[in-house]
């Protein structure tokens, strides 16, 4: 057995064992499978609907569909670059089996290629999963038949390997070049790099041009722009060219672009293996030195002491411990970069929204979009809460016995977690809604209504995150990042979304009345209190119930752990 295949056996054996005898009951698995199928079908139907709509636009259909394909592949490329950076840092430098493997008589090449495959699989399976319904939708709408799926099968492995090799090379160079004890700084740079790459890739694709044909000199220029990639040196563009040849019957050099893709997919891993072979052991040795102590940050203690002075001493101790742990755990705080990128892209979308070309009155469409934005902000908050609130209890890990054996009630523990998570979530939710409303230029009453609603929603979402995190605790995690992706994380996300949907539905009626009223000429569209007050009261009551029930459910589960 080759060393590469041998080194991959723990990976597939772990999967197999997890599937056959671990990983919870069949009902859980069925829920997860149903969720996956639901997402798959949802993605397929939405993309198919969009493509069908494009098809109706005379002459522009294939151009628009091609541009969408470019954007999708570019987004995948950016995601792959970032996830491979994070994954390769773990697989090459932080994984717990590295000592075992380094003590074994392994060839460096075997080790490198096994880790390259592991990194690629770990980082790419989700992209692969979501890309298939998208390609299927393209195939349904534009045809292409067997040739399309053959091309996809040929392209995808190459498309996945290129960013993996680039990211692995970058990780090695970062670990090698930066001074020892700097793993946190490395992650900082990785986050920053990913953010910049995502931003530029997004800007390079210029999606706003698709809805602004007047920004082109003439129609032909617009049409030409529609049919050419905006960034011809990226593997995403080469892949799009190959697929476009089959999908839209375009006269593209499929063979040339495939050769280009294949040559890079073969050359980059080889070049990376040489470069990494030269620097790996030095980098790995340096990475171990990060295990030394750190200096005490007195200013941090002072700041934390001041902002938590009003809490009882035990609650304060828990909050200060959680904040310090968060700041010192790179796997946690480095996710803030993703959050930052998300906010920028989120707000950018509002900036380029073509509201002026809507057939509806500007005031009405702004109110409607602002209201829809509430649901969107709620969704973003839910995603953030699953990342940060859901793991709050599990992150106590194997040290949970310390809290269990201390004179702190579990209720106080849950409330301190809830308080700690709610504060930054509130700031995020308010910021998202305030800035997007500012860009939409909504009337003051809508601004006030949105801010109050998002604040209430945040409390509910934070409580669901913390409560369900306690309901499905995992104190034996290998990697903190795996906690939110568990079954409990999925349940927490679903409950959160249902909560948001109910809040939005409750408020939809008064907003609908106001929007309809504004369509009648000469009507004043200021809301009256009686119209909004009942739904606000319902939302307040609903939020209080969700907070109380979620935390109570979590508390019961934690108490059962003593049994």
């Amino acid at each position: 057995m080759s060393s590469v295949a041998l080194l991959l056996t723990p990976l597939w054996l772990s999967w197999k064992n997890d599937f056959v005898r671990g990983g919870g009951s069949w009902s859980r698995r069925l829920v997860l499978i149903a969720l996956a199928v639901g997402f798959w079908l949802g993605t397929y139907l939405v993309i198919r609907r969009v493509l069908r709509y494009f098809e109706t636009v005379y002459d522009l259909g294939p151009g628009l569909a091609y541009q969408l394909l470019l954007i999708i592949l570019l987004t995948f490329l950016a995601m792959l670059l970032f996830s491979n950076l994070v994954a390769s840092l773990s697989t090459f430098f932080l994984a717990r089996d590295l000592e075992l493997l380094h003590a074994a008589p392994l060839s460096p090449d075997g080790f490198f290629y096994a880790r390259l495959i592991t990194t690629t699989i770990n980082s790419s399976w989700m992209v692969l999963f979501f890309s298939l319904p998208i390609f299927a939708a393209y195939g349904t709408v534009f045809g292409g038949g067997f040739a399309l799926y053959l091309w996809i099968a040929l392209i995808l492995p190459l498309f996945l390997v290129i960013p993996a090799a680039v990211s692995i090379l970058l990780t090695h160079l970062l670990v090698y070049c930066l001074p020892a004890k700097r793993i946190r700084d490395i992650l900082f740079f990785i986050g920053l790099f990913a953010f910049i790459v995502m931003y530029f890739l997004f800007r390079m694709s210029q999606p706003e041009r698709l809805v602004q044909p007047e920004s082109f000199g003439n129609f032909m220029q617009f049409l030409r722009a529609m049919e050419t990639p905006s960034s011809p040196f990226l593997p995403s563009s080469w892949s799009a060219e190959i697929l476009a040849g089959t999908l839209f019957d375009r006269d593209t050099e499929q063979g040339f672009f495939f050769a280009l893709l294949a040559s890079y997919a073969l050359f980059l891993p080889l070049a990376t293996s040489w470069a990494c072979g030269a620097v790996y052991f030095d980098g790995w040795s340096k990475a171990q030195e990060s295990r030394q102590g750190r200096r005490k940050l007195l200013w941090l203690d002072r700041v934390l002491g001041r902002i938590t002075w009003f809490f009882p001493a035990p609650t304060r101790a828990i909050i200060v411990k959680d904040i310090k742990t968060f700041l010192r755990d790179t796997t946690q705080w480095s996710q803030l970069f993703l959050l930052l990128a998300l906010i920028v892209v989120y707000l950018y979308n509002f900036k380029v929204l073509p509201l002026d070309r809507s057939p509806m009155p500007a005031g009405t469409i702004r109110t409607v979009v602002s209201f829809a934005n509430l649901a969107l902000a709620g969704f973003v908050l839910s995603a953030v809460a699953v990342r940060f609130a859901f793991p709050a209890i599990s992150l106590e890990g194997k040290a949970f016995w310390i809290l269990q054996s201390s004179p702190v009630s579990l209720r106080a523990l849950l409330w301190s977690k809830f308080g700690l998570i709610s504060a930054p979530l509130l700031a995020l939710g308010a910021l998202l809604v305030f800035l997007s409303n500012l860009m939409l230029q909504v009337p003051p009453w809508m601004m006030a209504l949105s801010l109050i609603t998002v604040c209430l929603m945040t409390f509910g979402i934070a409580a669901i995150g913390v409560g369900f995190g306690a309901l499905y605790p995992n104190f034996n995690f290998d990697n903190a990042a795996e906690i939110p992706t568990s079954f409990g994380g999925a349940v927490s996300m679903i409950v959160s979304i249902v909560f948001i949907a109910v809040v939005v539905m409750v408020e939809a009626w008064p907003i609908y009345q106001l929007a309809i009223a504004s369509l009648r000429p000469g009507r004043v569209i200021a809301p009256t209190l009686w119209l909004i007050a009942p739904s606000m009261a319902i939302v307040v009551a609903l939020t209080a119930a969700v907070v109380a029930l979620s935390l109570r459910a979590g508390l019961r589960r934690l108490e059962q752990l003593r049994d």
Partner: protein
Amino acid sequence: MIQLINLTKHYGKVAAVDGLDLDVPKGQIFGFLGPNGAGKTTTIRVMMGILKATAGQVLLDGQDVVAAAQQAKAIAGFIPDRPFIYEKLSGSEFLEFVGKLHRVDGERLGRRIAELLEYLELTYWKDELVESYSHGMKQRLVVCAALIHKPRILIVDEPMVGMDPKGARTIKDLFRALAANGTTVFLSTHSISVAEEICHRIGIIQKGRLIACGTMSELHQRAAGRHGNLESVFLELTREQERGPHPAERAG
């Protein structure tokens, strides 16, 4: 069999191991003793090629652990202080994997796994996932893994942590039997009683430097011969160099 030549390892400006020279002959159990943070784990990691030395050389049966890494590692077995085992693999799957890493294959591997599991009383649990093992069982499984390829050199870091008395006795007997058959055992520990009981020769490390090395009687002489046991000798030898905690090797 084991040679450390001017071995030095710096963490930033701190010397965790500082010019260590050592020679351990074949079939000897060498006890590597020192207080917490003395540099024991760092030395062992460098010996196994897990860490890169800042200067100096490690030779395992004449093979340089950096220049001829694969050859050196092929003849050595390693038992770390905090063993990592793939939690989602069963005990026998884990041993099979490690055996194949060391190019032990086929029927020979199957026989060896059965033999080791039997000796360390893990046969009943061999098909259970490692995540269900107790700490002591995981320790014993790691010992099995280290011996799967019949190494000529066994490098052990704190072997008795978390072991019950019976398990500890089994391991000590095992080390004695291995040494009697020609295997060289390099044993890092801060348990003086373990070192006293089974080691032929003992080296005492403090702040990265070897401050004493020899048989029990040689160490007694070195400490002016006034002391009855190794604990007193150890305390006497380390006392004069005690200058507060050493930052090196905090992890280990």
